[in-house]
């Protein structure tokens, strides 16, 4: 899994490439926590190039959501695959996580162009 971060205004976008599975190196949640510790509160996960997420990966997204939400921030997902959408639907997570078809729509909800 490769994670690139970029900032648009006060929003941090994680462009994730690969599979969000049990990693040998740093986890997604650790990346998110690092941004929280820099004072960032608005995060978008761009899952356009994510081919596969296992239960560990879902757990990382949930842990990131909890960390961000409890600090008054927002986590949004964009460009998720159909499979992941089904997973979110079946688990009920679609009612909690905000999902967008494209990342510009997610950015707009943060008041960014």
């Amino acid at each position: 899994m490769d994670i690139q971060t970029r900032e648009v205004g006060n929003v941090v976008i994680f462009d994730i490439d690969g599979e969000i599975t049990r990693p040998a190196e740093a986890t997604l949640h650790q990346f998110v926590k690092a941004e929280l510790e820099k004072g960032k509160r608005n995060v978008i996960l761009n899952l356009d190039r994510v081919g596969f997420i296992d239960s560990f990966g879902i757990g990382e997204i949930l842990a990131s959501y909890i960390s961000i939400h409890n600090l008054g921030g927002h986590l949004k997902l964009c460009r998720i695959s159909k499979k992941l959408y089904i997973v979110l639907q079946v688990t009920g997570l679609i009612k909690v996580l905000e999902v967008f078809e494209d990342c510009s729509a997610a950015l707009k909800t943060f008041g960014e162009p």
Partner: protein
Amino acid sequence: MDDGRLYRILHRFFDLRPDESRAALSLFAYFFLITFSIYIIKVVEETFLIGINPRLWPYPDLITVGLIGLAAAFNARLLTRLPRRTHAARTVLFFASNLIIFWLVFNMNARDLVLSPTVDSSGLLGAVPLLVTIKDSWPAPVIVFSFWADLFIVMTVTHFWIAVNDVFTLHQAKRTIGFLVTGGLFGGIGGALLMWLLGRVVGPTSLLLVCTAVLVLMLVAIRRVYGQARKIPEGSDAARAASGQRVGYFDSLRTVRRHDYLRVLAALLFSATVVGALVNYQFKSVVKAQIDNDLLRTSFLGSFFFWILVVSAAVHLATTSRLLKTFGVRLAVYVAPIVLILGTVSLFLLPAAGVGLMAWACFMRGSDKTFDNTITQSVRELLYIPVPAAVKYKAKVFIDMFVNKFAVGFGAVLYWVLYRALSFSYRDPVVQVRLIAYFVIGFAGLWITLAGVIYARYVGVLKKDLRKLWQEAHKKLEAHVDVDSVAPIVDLLQSRERSSTLYLMNLFRMVRSDKLTPELREALAFREDEIKARSLDSLLDVGGEAPFREIEEEAPDADLVTVISEVLHLDSFKTVMHSKLAEIVDGPASPEMSRMEAALLAGLMEPTPEVMRSLRRLLEDPSAEVLNYALGSAAVHRHKAHLPLILPHLGQPTTRQAAQAALAAYGPEIDDTLRRHLESDKESLEVRRAIPEVLARTGGQRAADILTEELSRGRGEMEQELVDALFRIRADRPVVLFKKKKILEAVYSIVRACYALILGKGGEESPGGSDGAALGRAALLELRIKRIFDLLTLIYAPDDIAKAYQNILKGTAKSVDHSLELLDNILNRNLKTYLFPLIEDLPQEQRLSVLRKLRRRLDRAASGRRLNWAPRLFRMTSRDRDA
């Protein structure tokens, strides 16, 4: 003078911010002029009033009661129809013109009557009939003037406090109130001094013209004040209040009646005012008996008010702000009634001959006036501030004008009844005063009772104004999601594409635990009979053929779970599977998928020694995926022997979640095992960091105590995890109690770390661990403050703390104010002292100065070196114990 210089001068004496200085000074001047004129008018009024027959003393107050309601209604209506600046200015002009008329009337009364029907030396024929009328009607002009004076005082002071509300927010008002009231005190001192020095020379009447000039200056002050009024956001309560809604007397009355808080506030003011009125009658009785001459009386009253105000100013400068800041509204509201009760009781210790009576009367009236000018007035205005603006404007006019005067009228009726019923005209002043004292004690007692009630309501109003801006994350999740099912569902869906055996075992696991929701069924789109057949095939397939074909054929309609469970319990099946398991586990080159299947199967089978042995081996597997399933199976069996194998997996990010879930499944019985690993310095930091989450999930009292104990050790590298776990326990299990002393110790420790962040290291060690060394100070400070508030939810009402934190972080200016005020009223005094400089909006220089001072005190407390005045941080106060 520029704002910066002005701020620097004022800041030496008062708690002001740079952007407030000019507005505060304008309000200071406004209040100065109001009270300067009030004390000229009051001395004139009292001089004349004391001079007339005491049986007439209640009449001015009764007239006030009768007419003030109309005046209040008229004023309320004008407040909403006219811009407040215009209304305030026109009111002052009206009163200034009245003063000239009164001067004329009193002057004419003082002149000798011309009896012959000729034109007198002034050349005005009409002056003679007017003189006669005035002389004949005397003391009616005195009574009219007394009513007029009451009206003047109430209306000008009300306009002033409305102007304060227009210019400042709640928190600004609380901070600047000391400065503003000082302006009022200095004005009163000036007016009283003028009367003292000039009263016996010029006489009271001529000084009314001086007052007229002061009112003209007041117009300038009003103009300056409203030039500083803050812009009120559209749509806010204040904006709607200012937009010209109809407000009548009955509307104001209904507003007060509808609000429990305002009713109690009105009752509190009523009882306090009745006490003041009765004390005033006591004072008048004594002064009349001891000073007969008008000029001497003017001078005496001038000096009396002068010294009262000087003492008030000294008391106010030295104590009011400090009292409010240290003890808050909660205790400040009791000060006046308690002193007055004690003073009244002391009357009965005076000799019957009345020695010391004048001194006693001066003390009582002086105390009442002093408190009224300082702490009581400040507290009263602070009690108004949490009320929504639209309600406040209506209510304030009603309460300040009508209720206040009604209470004075009530006191007047009481005195009138006592005067007649107890024949005061035939009684010694000492006896008169003692008889009134019984009623003073009664109403002061009522005052004290209402003070307690209003304080409780005050905090309620603050809380009501605050909303929670967001729900805690895991609560939000639990409301919509079965969090424990998420991983199994994902594993199920994923395994469908990887291994039919794994898939079907996952499916069986879901069915057995009744987690196969309609959404999941639809997503899987399976048919039950197909599944039954395939699952039996897979489970029973030990070499390509199903050896128990007859079972498959004989149980086509049986419940899937029951059938499979029965099969799993068959001895023959167990024998076969044990050997299969051993083959996979012990085999040198078993494929990862086979090991995953074996790990999942171990959780479905009975915990025989062979299965447990296989599971032990699988818990040491190098594959994270195999471990995930093995840990899941370990969670099913909860075998003590597996604990040492599960714990190390807490240290790996790939298996941490599964290991935490597995350990949590053991429940509270392993709390002490977890404690040993948590406390052990030999255990790896990553393992120790993962343990608090497990304890949060087992979540009993013992788990809470273990976490609190570890937190109090002050090893900062796990601080975040410990606080998060405690926060979670508090949210999930409200019955769990937390050791307040230890939590407070942890809070102070984090506060100290926050000070170090702001002030720079200077020898302080910043706690390391998950925060790291390279983080932005502001972000780190915010995280630490969050931890402080998370800990405070353990020892104070969680909702109150959560609301306060969320609104301080992301609320409007008003909700930030209310949050700070709420915290001011619920946190213990020590905690407030150390916490508030971190969360209040202070100028940087002031914050640094305060923090340096507080850090020195914290350092002394932490090192055990205490000076007499340093706070005992780690001793529980009675409030801590009671909470």
